[in-house]
């Protein structure tokens, strides 16, 4: 494929600015497609050109495949970068790019199909000998007893025909299995006319650990793992790399599994394989693969020195990776805090508005990815993330200390942000110890954290 000269960016906010940063460094032009609400955004000002895709609501602008393609062609772009969210994993966009002779800076439509659906993605994991959460369908108590023996307790019983947690039962030991199974099958029969149920291991203490993949289709490398266990309602809040206190053999297993998965589906681009780490059993299970750049990619960049966006572009141009696995030598530790315009005191309600002051000075080991400047408007239509602070340290303690300093020194006035939440997390003994699980933040917020 020919070298890219002008990239159409089908995104907004900090990731649009992040892509423009690397494009400028590579000497590439950029065209940013914006909604009518984003015409004055930093990205719109920094891009070589900005075009208005449509009105403020995403469905009328950022989510319109045809409009994006039309805009990219009409502005003479030769490639489309979808960022994250919006159309980034949309098979139709990738396909339309292929049909129109535009380079999609992401994986192939087939790759997107392979990972886009949970069940398909899981079946690929099984085929690639990547562990998934143990479980299976049972029709009788005998089946259930045999399977429960393999799966272990606690376990979950779900109706095969059900969904959304309906009729789900947690079983803590073998004694209560028969009664719970009876009840679950009766409920399933009553609710769905299908008494079959599914038994699955219940992970009491789980960590979210994901592996960064880089693949040119032939060479498949990993760039280490990230720990994203600090979540609020499945939204990542703090991420870090590497994952603290991960047993070496578990880490090795994770990294190998991620590469094996990517190889199995013939993946070609930047991507991330997400795992649930079962802390009590020291095992891990495949969750899903994200076929795009992640919000938290900077922590990987901080410990590896790579420019993942530049590599993503090079792969899209058809260039073979010139790196080998040995060239990627993570050093030190990095932490990322997502600053959101939201009001913790009002149940994290988004707080859009106009920024009066934004100052993110040079601090040792600090990187800030943001589209905030004094006077910036945060429209109410989109994600409330306004900045990512990333600190690097020779040790995890140093990275955390630097983040606490950054939170004190940086200024973002005019809007309410979740900075107090980040201070609380980074000062909390359990977090500082390292290796918290996905229930951690909920407990901290409920005041039942280790240190509450």
């Amino acid at each position, binding site marked *: 494929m020919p070298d890219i000269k002008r990239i159409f960016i089908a995104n907004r906010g900090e990731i649009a600015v992040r892509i423009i940063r690397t494009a400028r460094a590579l000497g590439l032009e950029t065209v940013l497609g914006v909604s009518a609400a984003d015409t004055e955004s930093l990205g719109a000002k920094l891009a070589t050109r900005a075009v208005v895709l449509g009105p*403020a609501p995403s469905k009328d602008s950022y989510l319109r495949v045809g*409009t994006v393609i039309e805009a990219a062609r009409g502005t003479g772009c030769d490639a489309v970068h979808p960022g994250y969210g919006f159309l980034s994993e949309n098979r139709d966009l990738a396909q339309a790019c292929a049909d129109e002779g535009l380079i999609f800076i992401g994986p192939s439509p087939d790759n997107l199909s392979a990972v886009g659906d949970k069940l398909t993605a899981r079946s690929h994991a099984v085929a690639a000998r990547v562990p998934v959460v143990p479980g299976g369908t049972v029709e009788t108590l005998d089946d259930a007893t045999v399977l429960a023996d393999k799966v272990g307790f606690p376990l979950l019983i779900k109706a095969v025909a059900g969904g959304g947690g309906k009729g789900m039962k947690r079983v803590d030991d073998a004694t209560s299995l028969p009664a719970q199974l009876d009840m679950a099958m009766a409920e399933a029969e009553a609710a769905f006319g299908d008494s079959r149920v599914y038994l699955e291991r219940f992970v009491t203490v789980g960590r979210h650990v994901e592996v960064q993949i880089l693949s040119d289709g032939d060479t498949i490398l990993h760039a280490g793992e990230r720990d994203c266990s600090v979540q609020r309602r499945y939204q990542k809040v703090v991420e870090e790399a590497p994952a603290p206190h991960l047993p070496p053999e578990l880490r090795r297993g994770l990294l190998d599994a991620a590469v094996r998965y990517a190889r199995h589906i013939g993946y070609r681009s930047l991507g991330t394989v997400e795992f649930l780490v079962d802390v009590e059993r020291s095992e891990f299970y495949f969750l899903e693969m994200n076929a795009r750049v992640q919000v938290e990619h900077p922590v990987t960049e901080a410990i590896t020195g790579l420019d993942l966006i530049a590599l993503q572009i090079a792969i899209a141009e058809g260039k073979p990776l010139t790196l080998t696995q040995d060239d990627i030598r993570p050093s030190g530790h990095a932490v990322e805090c997502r600053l959101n315009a939201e009001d913790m005191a009002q149940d994290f309600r988004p707080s859009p508005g106009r920024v009066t002051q934004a100052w993110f000075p040079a601090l040792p080991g600090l990187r800030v990815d943001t589209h905030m400047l004094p006077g910036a408007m945060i429209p109410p239509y989109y994600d409330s993330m306004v900045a990512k602070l990333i600190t690097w340290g020779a040790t995890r303690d140093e990275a955390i200390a630097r983040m606490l300093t950054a939170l004190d020194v940086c200024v973002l006035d005019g809007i309410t942000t979740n900075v107090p939440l980040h201070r609380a997390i980074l000062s909390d003994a359990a977090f500082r110890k390292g290796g918290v699980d996905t229930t951690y933040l909920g407990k901290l917020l409920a005041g039942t954290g280790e240190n509450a």
Partner: protein
Amino acid sequence: MAELTRADIDEILKLVDGSEFDELKLEMGDLKLELRRRGANPSAPVAAPAPAPAAAKTSEPVAAPIAPESGGTEVPAPLLGTFWHAPRPGAAPFVKPGDTVQADTVIGIIEVMKLMNSVEAGIAGTVTEIAAPNGELVEHGQCLIRVRPA
């Protein structure tokens, strides 16, 4: 950098005073001038949803707030795409300067991925200018043609 003298400002004040405008904002280099007529509402917030542009249905005469220098009201593109003056290559254009249009007169087509979207004038009057070139990309909100209201 352009420089306004006091005399210029006097002139502007007089001019605006005699006009029908409620509000004036002027920025020239580092000079910034804002005027608002007594009793007038401050202008709409910057990030507010775009007001329904062309569909001025009622009988209120539309002021010519935008681009008064061209002598017409802008008809903005309702969506991004390729703007076509005529129904097909070689055919006569939908409208040309001097034509009279009604609110429902089709003034052009915007193509998005082979889908043809006809665009109506949204206002009755006389076409003064075809602003967007044939066969080229128009952004959402970009001026397509200008119409002097009837």
